C-alpha cells in the first residue's frame, strides 16, 4: 500500500474530525442563542463577543472537572459506553460527501454503512444505562433504546423511496442523480418524495433524542436519563455524540432529499471560486436543517412515552410503507 495514500487519507480524516468537533461545539452555542431569542432572552454573552468563546470555556471547564466513577458501576462497560457513543457518531462522517471529491471513503454501500453505524449508537446508550447501576440511568437507557429502534424502522423504510429513484446505495451517486432541473424546479428527491422526507426528518429527530422526542433525558422524570452517573469529559462525550448525530442527520437529509452539494441556481462565479460553490451549498443546507432542529426544540413541548411509541409504530411506519409501495408502483408504470 502506498504511503502517500495513507498520509493523504489521514490528513483528510483529521481535517474532517477537527471541523466536525468545532461544528458540534458551536452547534451548542447556536442552539443556546436561538432558543434564548425564541424565549426572549440573550443567551451566552459574557465569554467573548456574542458569547462566541463560550464553547471553548465549556470544553476547558469540562476537561478539568473531577472525573469520578461511582461505586457499584460495572467498570469496563461504564468506561466503554461514552467512547463507543462518540466513536460511532464520528465514524458516520467517513462516507459523507461534502462536495464532489470531498469525501474520506466513497463506499458503494455508503447509505447502508451510515444506517449500520448510526444504529450502533444505541449500544452506547444501553451500555451506559445498564452499567451505571442506577435506576434513573437504567430507565433512561431502556426508554432510549426502545425509542431509537422504533424510529430506526421508519428511517430505513423512508430511505427506500430515495433508493428507488436513485438506483444506488452510494451517497455520491445519489447526489449525482439529483443534478439538473425539471423546468424551474431542481431535480431534488424531496419533490417526488415529500412524504418520504417527512417520515425521514421526523424519525431523524426522534433517532437523535431531540425535542419533542427527548424522552430518554426527560429532566422532570429521569434527571438526565442514561448519563445521570457520568461526570466531566465522559458526560461531554455523550453530549458531543448527540450533537454530532444532529449534524449527521442534517447531512443525510441534505444528501438524500435536497440534492447534496447541488445549488438551486446555476453559479456564475469565476473558475477558481467555482470549487467552493458545492461546499457552500452543502453547508448552507446543513445549517438550515440544524436551525429547523433548534426551532422545533424552541417551539414544541415533549411527547408522552405512549404517544411517542404509537406515533412511530402506528403512523410513521405505515405511512413510510405506503409511500414505498406508491413510489415503486409509479416507477414501474413509467418504466
Amino acid at each position: 500500500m502506498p504511503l502517500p495514500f495513507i498520509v493523504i487519507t489521514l490528513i483528510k480524516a483529521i481535517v474532517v474530525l477537527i471541523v466536525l468537533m468545532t461544528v458540534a461545539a458551536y452547534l451548542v452555542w447556536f442552539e443556546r442563542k436561538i432558543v434564548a431569542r425564541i424565549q426572549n432572552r440573550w443567551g451566552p454573552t459574557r465569554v467573548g463577543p456574542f458569547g462566541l468563546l463560550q464553547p471553548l470555556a465549556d470544553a476547558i471547564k469540562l476537561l478539568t472537572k473531577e472525573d469520578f466513577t461511582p461505586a457499584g458501576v460495572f467498570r469496563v462497560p461504564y468506561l466503554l459506553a461514552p467512547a463507543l457513543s462518540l466513536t460511532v457518531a464520528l465514524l458516520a462522517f467517513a462516507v459523507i460527501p461534502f462536495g464532489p471529491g470531498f469525501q474520506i471513503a466513497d463506499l458503494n454501500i455508503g447509505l447502508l454503512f451510515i444506517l449500520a453505524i448510526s444504529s450502533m449508537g444505541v449500544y452506547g446508550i444501553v451500555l451506559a444505562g445498564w452499567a451505571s447501576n442506577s435506576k434513573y440511568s437504567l430507565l433512561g437507557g431502556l426508554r432510549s433504546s426502545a425509542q431509537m429502534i422504533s424510529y430506526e424502522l421508519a428511517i430505513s423504510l423512508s430511505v427506500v423511496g430515495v433508493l428507488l429513484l436513485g438506483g444506488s446505495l452510494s451517497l455520491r451517486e445519489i447526489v449525482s442523480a439529483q443534478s439538473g432541473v425539471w423546468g424551474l424546479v431542481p431535480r431534488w428527491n424531496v419533490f417526488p418524495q415529500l412524504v418520504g422526507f417527512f417520515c425521514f426528518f421526523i424519525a431523524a429527530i426522534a433517532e437523535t433524542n431531540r425535542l419533542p422526542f427527548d424522552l430518554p433525558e426527560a429532566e422532570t422524570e429521569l434527571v438526565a436519563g442514561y448519563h445521570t452517573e457520568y461526570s466531566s469529559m465522559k458526560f461531554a462525550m455523550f453530549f458531543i455524540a448527540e450533537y454530532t448525530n444532529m449534524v449527521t442527520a442534517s447531512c443525510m437529509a441534505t444528501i438524500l432529499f435536497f440534492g447534496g452539494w447541488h445549488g438551486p441556481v446555476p453559479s456564475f462565479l469565476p473558475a477558481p471560486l467555482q470549487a467552493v460553490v458545492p461546499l457552500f451549498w452543502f453547508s448552507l443546507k446543513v445549517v438550515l436543517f440544524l436551525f429547523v432542529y433548534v426551532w422545533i426544540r424552541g417551539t414544541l413541548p415533549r411527547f408522552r412515552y405512549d404517544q411517542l411509541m404509537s406515533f412511530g409504530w402506528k403512523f410513521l411506519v405505515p405511512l413510510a410503507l405506503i409511500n414505498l409501495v406508491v413510489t415503486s408502483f409509479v416507477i414501474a408504470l413509467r418504466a
Partner: protein
Amino acid sequence: MPNGYFHENYIPVLIDLGLIVVVAGGMLLLSYLLGQHKRTREKLMPYECGMTPTGDASHRFSIRFYLVAMIFILLDVEVVFLFPWAVIFRELKMFGFIEMLLFVLIVVAGFVYLWKKGVLDWSRREPGEMQ
C-alpha cells in the same frame, strides 16, 4: 491480499476509525489526568435525588421493551430485503413491483396482527403488571 476496491475505500474507513478511537481514548485519559480526585462516600453513591439508594438498579421492567426489540428485529430484517430490491428496481419493473407487493403484504399481515393484539399499545395496562 485484498483487491483495489477494498484498498481505496475500506482502508480509509479503518484509518478514520483508528483516528477516532485514539481521540475518544485520549479524551477519557485527559479528563482522568486533569481533573482532581477527592472521593467521598456520598459522592460515589448512585444518584437518587439525595436519598440513600434502596437496593440496586436490577429491577424488573415492562415486558413491552422486549417485545419492541423482537418486533424491531423481525421488521428490520424485512426492510433490509427491500434495499437490494430498490437498487435494481428499474430493471425488474412491474414484475419486481408485484413480487415485492406480495412480500410487503405478508409483512403487513403480521404487523396488523401485532397491532390488533395490542403489542404497539403502550398506554394500556395488562392485569397484574407492575406500574
